[in-house]
């Protein structure tokens, strides 16, 4: 059964025009499609090819090409194969179709991508803030977002206080008793005096 699906899908998808089909290994397939044919491909993979599990949608910002790349990772429990469906959409309107009707977990992934990259998914149930609930800047995962400049504008940094170190050094540094000193003391102390006395002096020192 599973072998049949794999064979059938290999033949079918390889024959379809406009689908870049690469078998990376026994269990990985890469497909490159145009953005308008991707929903159809996903429908085919889900409905006929047993790829029922959408693991993740990842987004890459190719700022030099002025494009976003979306990668849909699909898993089939029948043929134990991972399909990565790649597509590229232009960066400037940044609007794409949601696949929520095919895969319900896509709602979370699309909401996340909308927050991090500013890409809007039409038909997704909820495009509200997801993780960055207090965010008031541009989408932070875009390549043109300068995190360092943002941080310098938004936050203050601690000044360097050398007097803090001086205070610590006067008290003998961070470590009050070095372990090797304790060991040496104990060795010397065992021959001379009671061990309990030395323990007490050590505790006082700390």
């Amino acid at each position, binding site marked *: 059964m599973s072998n049949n699906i794999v064979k059938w899908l290999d033949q079918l998808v390889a024959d379809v025009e406009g689908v870049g089909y690469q078998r990376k290994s026994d269990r990985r397939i890469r497909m490159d499609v145009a953005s308008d044919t991707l929903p159809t491909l996903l429908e085919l993979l889900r409905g006929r090819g047993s790829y029922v599990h959408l693991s993740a949608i990842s987004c890459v910002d190719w700022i030099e090409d002025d494009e976003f790349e979306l990668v849909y990772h699909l898993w089939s429990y029948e043929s134990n194969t991972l399909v990565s469906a790649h597509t590229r959409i232009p960066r400037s309107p940044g609007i794409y179709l949601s696949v929520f009707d095919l895969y319900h977990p896509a709602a979370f992934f699309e909401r996340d991508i909308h927050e991090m990259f500013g890409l809007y998914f039409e038909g997704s149930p909820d495009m509200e803030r997801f*993780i*960055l*609930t*207090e*965010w*008031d*800047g541009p989408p*932070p995962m875009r390549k043109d*977002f300068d*995190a*360092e400049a*943002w*941080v310098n504008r*938004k*936050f*203050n*940094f*601690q000044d360097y206080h050398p007097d803090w170190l001086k205070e610590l050094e006067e008290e003998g540094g*961070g*470590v*009050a008793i070095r372990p090797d000193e304790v060991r040496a003391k104990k060795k010397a102390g065992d021959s001379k005096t009671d061990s309990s006395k030395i323990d007490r002096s050590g505790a006082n020192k*700390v």
Partner: protein
Amino acid sequence: MTEIKDIPVKVEADSGKDPVSDLGIKKRTNPLANVFDELIKFCRSRSLFMLHYCTGCGAIELPPAMTSRFDMERLGIQPMVTPRQADILLVTGYVSVKTLKRIILTYEQMSSPKYVVGICSCTVNGGMYWQSYATAKKLDEYMPVDLYIAGCMPRPEAVMEGLKKLMNDIKSGKASNWKDYYQNYDRYLGNQQHLFGDNWQTPSDVIGEANNYELAGPGTTGEHTARLEEYQRPLEPITSHFRIGETVKENDSTNNNNNDTNNNNDKKGGE
């Protein structure tokens, strides 16, 4: 004691009474009062309940510090599960903006005197997240920090050492940063509003607490606390509907629903 004298006393202008005798606690005639104060400070430093707000990787160092290897409890420090009964708030690790909200809510729930210890470099200066857009850099901008334990991450020995220093500070009366939050609440609130927006609200009434502790000074209220009142939403009664019929009689739900709607209509009519 010198500390209580230092606290500014709020006196009403038209009251003809002597402010010191009026409040009663300020005038110390009992020669044993100082002794009791010292005793209270000693006891306070020896029974500390610690709320560890484990935000980041520094939390890894706390289990060995608390359990049998280094045994924090021999110093009188014990973990506590609720903020209302805790004395120390231990912030271990990076503080994202979203987490900072929760830390401030936790801090304001604690009863005074309260102490904040920032563990790891991240609480000092952002640490390795200095470039991150989502991580707050200085914890002491948003709440008064008594002690920083630097390191990435500090070993349990360093944690113990820092807590011992805190104990000494409490015993000598040096650790009084919690008063700063009441005295300069406007500044802290301004920094919080800078991150969370102008409509940031906390459920606890800090200004009221400051008045209660008689710590309200010129820095307690200001432009930022005025914003607090501006964005305050009036309390609304929570409406809840219990439909007992649905759970008891599952067979004929249509009848129950009809009854419920009837009841609701009756109530509305009655009101």
